[in-house]
């Protein structure tokens, strides 16, 4: 169990720290795979119809469909390396480290995990992932990176959801996944249009609207 959690936190840091888009997408894909395996284990690791069906669906969606959608999106883009980041990478990694320290030191604040079979590191890892996802969302200006940040955030939330996974009906879970896929699909279309209209995907150019003239 713990090695999966370590993997999730590490992939989060790769998404944050890497300066190229391709390794980031791959990291998100790996994270998705780890999550699906973890979900399978938490549900009792039974190879019955229900369990394997859910495992296959989450694996396919999180590790194949969503990354492929993002790869298709970045295909037509001019450049894939971050230029002029808002905050330098060193500072970002340092902040992420602080977030991790904060999350893991707040284990005692969260009274959830007293059940057997759930690692005590689950909630801190989820919290680290969620907060780092936020960090990616607000500090990276490129539209694709914001989508990746959003995905990391969602993955963090799903990690948290592992604590109550047994109470969730399968239909609801598949609905949540479908929403995610359609969301990434629409975001991809939107990025394509942003690139076509503005010739880049830096969201800092999207600042016309507002109340102050």
């Amino acid at each position, binding site marked *: 169990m713990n090695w999966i959690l370590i993997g999730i936190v590490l992939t989060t840091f790769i998404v944050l720290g890497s300066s190229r888009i391709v390794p980031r997408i791959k990291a998100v894909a790996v994270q998705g795979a780890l999550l699906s395996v973890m979900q399978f284990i938490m549900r009792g690791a039974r190879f019955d119809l229900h369990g394997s069906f859910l495992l296959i669906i989450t694996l396919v969606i999180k590790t194949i469909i969503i990354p492929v959608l993002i790869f298709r999106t970045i295909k037509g883009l001019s450049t894939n390396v971050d230029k002029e980041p808002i905050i330098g990478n060193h500072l970002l990694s340092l902040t992420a480290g602080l977030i991790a320290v904060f999350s893991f030191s707040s284990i005692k604040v969260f009274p*959830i995990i007293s059940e057997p079979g759930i690692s005590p590191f689950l909630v801190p890892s989820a919290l680290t992932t969620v907060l780092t996802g936020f960090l990616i969302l607000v500090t990276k200006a490129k539209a694709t990176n914001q989508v990746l940040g*959003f995905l990391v*955030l969602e993955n963090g*939330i799903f990690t948290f959801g592992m604590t109550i996974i047994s*109470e*969730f009906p399968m239909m*609801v879970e598949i609905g949540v996944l*479908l929403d995610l896929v359609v969301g990434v699909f629409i975001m991809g279309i939107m990025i394509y*249009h942003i690139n076509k209209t503005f010739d880049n995907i830096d969201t800092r150019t999207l600042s016309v*609207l507002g109340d102050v003239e």
Partner: protein
Amino acid sequence: MILTIFVPLFLGIITLFLRDNKRIGARRTLLITGALLHNAGTISILFFNKWLSWAPYLQVDGLGFIFLILISIIFTVTSFYSLGYFTLKRKYAEKESGGHIYVSCMLFFLSAMTLAVSTTHIGVLWIAIESTTLASAPLIYYHQSRRSLEAAWKYLLICSVGIAIALLGLFFVAASARGTGAELSLSSLIGHARELDVRLLRIGFILVLIGFGTKMGLAPFHNWLPDAHSEAPSPISALLSATLLNCALLGIIRFYQICLAAGLGAFANRLMMVFGLISLFISAVFITNQKDYKRLLAYSSIEHMGIITLGIGISANFASLLHVVSHSLTKALLFLTAGNILLLYRTKSISDVGGLLKTSPQTGILFIIGGFAIIGSPPFLPFISEFLILRDGINGGHILAMSLYLLFLGIIFVSMSMAILKMVQGKRRETIAGDLPKIVIVPQVVLAVAIVIMGLYLPQYVSDIIRSATRLLTTL
């Protein structure tokens, strides 16, 4: 039930394939068919609710029914209006594209919203509210301009993140039910309310309030709302403001019900009061001296969502639900009329619009009725509901909150009526559109008549429906 959710979905998928521009008539027929079938479905739920539900996934309770009726009415009105609106736009304005996307997204949007209001399972509720975001983002991007692109991207990202936070809140609520045997349906959670872990439920409610509050336009998470409402085509602004915000509100109310049952009523009330007042404050600030009339209306939506949240926070449940109805009807009227103004003057700036009463008398009168209704002057329906909130608040002893409420309403009253009067008075202007056809006038007249009549005399069955919903919100 099937009519209301799956028919729009199915028709939407059909419309996706009707890409050809010649198929425009077929698309329009499908849109209207969807709307009318939805009406039929809603009416059948009124009579045969017991046999039509599949609890807890698809089940319309008293609370959901109010929202369902509103969605049905406003969607029908809006789809008739958009027939006329887009014909006129094609005639006088830029080339249009993406009609099939428009119609199918509107139908998808309808079915997502219907699902959101006709479920009592909080997981399904979350899925439905997230899908409303996805279905409406392409609608906001309809104009395909730089500005609408920015608005749509902001909307999509901010709301998705907001709703993701609501999912986290949902997980917390679910975690609080661990070991009690409660399922994630409303009735089961409320039944086991006393056994829920209060600490987790509290965190969960805060997260849900932030998450769905983002979608509902509660300040300070309202940033996307003025942009999206001002850049979307007018019928879409009307739908967003009058129905979509309500769905998010219903999401919050569902979790509020759980909190009430678990004995966290005071805590939830306090939170909702604070957020309501902040929204009122922010909207009062931005409405003053606003230069763009669609943004003005958007901020007014934030104001009214604030009023409703405040109203529920001070336990003025009947008045708040009545205000949901009055806000939806009035705001739909206003945004549709704003669409007419945009057609006539081709500008969104308040100072460039003048002489509306003389240029197009019907539009001018409708705009005055809507405008004065929304700022809360008698004899319209919003006045009644705002007044009832005030009465309940003072009876409940919330003197400070109510004085702030009155202060902000006063500021908004003055600045909005100034803007409205500036727009309707003055000399006649020459416009390219000339006289507007009936199809862009009649839908608003229906809404205007409704708010006037209900302001003078609230029919018995309307208040019965609201009262039966109010019973769900009383502390046990």
